[in-house]
């Protein structure tokens, strides 16, 4: 491809992406506008009066607590996912045990089930176990989103690792578990990281589990908080968009850090 053509296509590409991501730009830019500027006709595409009052206003509210809750819920859910999914994927990839295909089927099917179907029963079960209004309820529920995805993605990855690596470790007298921990885990770290990040995103984005299981607002994540804030802030869209920007920030940071791995991982984890 000639340099000239490459340049033209690059510019067209930038325009397409800029148009496509306009809503994200609009969210961030609105957060920096004053209340009077939001409703101006014609709308200003860049704040004339750049101000951070909206961020200060929402920070003085409950955003700090919501943010912390989101980190706790998504962080713990990710931990649960990795502790369960990494060994499971390895076992499915390496051990010749009975029922591998039916266990794979369980993961495939559970991955497709809507939260709505399990919501009411889980509510009743968690109620009986006394788990309502605790972090445990959304942590356990959102972990079910990441587990099947991660198992399916990591199994494919583990199957691609040459067996000789572990065999060499076994001859050295390593046990199977130590071979797994000392040989397999280190070389799979990028893939494990991708699973962790995506499970984190799944849990970070959850609304339905938290608002259902936790009536106690002290335990709400950002998503529930922002949903509730619609009523409270009314049409103070600059405050709402500041809230939204804060909610999205960690996702974008993680995405930028892991972009290359994430895009590849998403494809292989979704199609299988």
């Amino acid at each position: 491809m000639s340099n000239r053509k490459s340049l033209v296509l690059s510019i067209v590409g930038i325009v397409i992406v800029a148009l496509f991501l306009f809503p994200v730009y609009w969210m961030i830019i609105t957060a920096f506008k004053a209340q009077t500027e939001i409703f101006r006709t014609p709308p200003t595409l860049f704040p004339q009066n750049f101000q951070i009052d909206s961020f200060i206003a929402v920070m003085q509210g409950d955003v700090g607590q919501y943010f912390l809750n989101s980190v706790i819920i998504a962080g713990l859910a990710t931990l649960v996912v990795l502790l369960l999914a990494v060994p499971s994927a390895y076992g499915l990839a390496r051990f010749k045990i009975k029922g591998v295909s039916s266990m794979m089927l369980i993961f495939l099917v559970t991955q497709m089930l809507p939260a709505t179907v399990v919501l009411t029963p889980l509510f009743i079960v968690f109620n009986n176990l006394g788990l309502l209004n605790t972090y445990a309820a959304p942590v356990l529920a959102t972990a079910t989103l990441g587990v099947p995805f991660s198992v399916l993605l990591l199994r494919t990855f583990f199957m691609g690792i040459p067996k000789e690596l572990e065999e060499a470790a076994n001859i050295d007298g390593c046990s199977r578990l130590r071979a797994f921990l000392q040989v397999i885990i280190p070389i799979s770290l990028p893939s494990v990281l991708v699973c962790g990040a995506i499970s984190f995103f799944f849990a970070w984005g959850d609304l339905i589990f938290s608002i259902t299981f936790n009536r106690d607002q002290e335990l709400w994540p950002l998503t529930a908080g922002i949903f509730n804030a619609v009523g409270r802030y009314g049409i103070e869209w600059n405050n709402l968009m500041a809230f939204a920007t804060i909610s999205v920030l960690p996702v974008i940071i993680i995405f930028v850090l892991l972009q290359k791995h994430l895009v590849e991982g998403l494809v292989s984890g979704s199609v299988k």
Partner: protein
Amino acid sequence: MIQVWKKLRKDAGGYLFVLPAVIFMLLLIGYPLLYNIILSFQNVDLSNLAGGKREFVGFANYRTVAEEEVFGISIQNTLVYTVGSVFFQVIIGFCLASFFSMKFKLAGFLRGIMMISWLIPMTVTALLFKFMMGSEEGILNQMLMTFYFIEEPIGWLSSPNIALWSVIIANIWIGIPFNMLLLSTGLSSLPQDVYESASLDGANWWQKLVHITLPLLKPVIMVVLMLGFIYTFKVFDVVYVMTGGGPINSTEVLSTLAFRYSFSDFDFSLGAAVANVLFIMLFVISLIYLRMIKKDEAI
């Protein structure tokens, strides 16, 4: 004897690796799924939730639900929502995938950055579109009016005739990058020599698209359609946050209806019945999907 013991120990090791995750999913998804079916045949509300006497009422919940006008509406809305979203996501996704498959300098980077719309929590996206689609102050109406596409502001979310499509637009935006990504992977796996010989035979781009790309890409497109259907059919957040099912039930879908029965009316059995209808419809689609990918590889 020793060999049997060894084999058992070896197997046990395998199960120790595999089973915790399987049990976790069975407890938190499998068991609730069965429980939901039982619930839908009982009469559970707040009074007997925590251990009062529950009675089996046969199909009474399903009959109650089916008699409500909103049930039919929500099935129809769910189907329109799903088909509308998936149709446009796949078409736009395909165009973008084709564009980015031309190997220009920034292609990979730009394609990757679009994923942001898929990663943003749906609650935030829904709120953002609600803001942009506001009838007076929303940027969408303002822009359309500035360029004289419309004279009067459109009630994107306040008009019952339009609201469903406004919600679909938000959902299309969320889903485009994911469709694009899967289709890109499919496109990059197509054999290049077929295109070269077609060019030698004087085929234009349209002929190449219709006679080479689409037929070769058909398995991938089918998978993308199925996945799109499965993931869109269970929509909740976008509708719940943007419209809450309104105005006048015009955007009510099965999942928001089930949620309303269970957690606004606290009629858990009615909610379970609606959720079950959703499940059965999804189950049929999933079976078709599983059969399709099973042909590709032994799972």
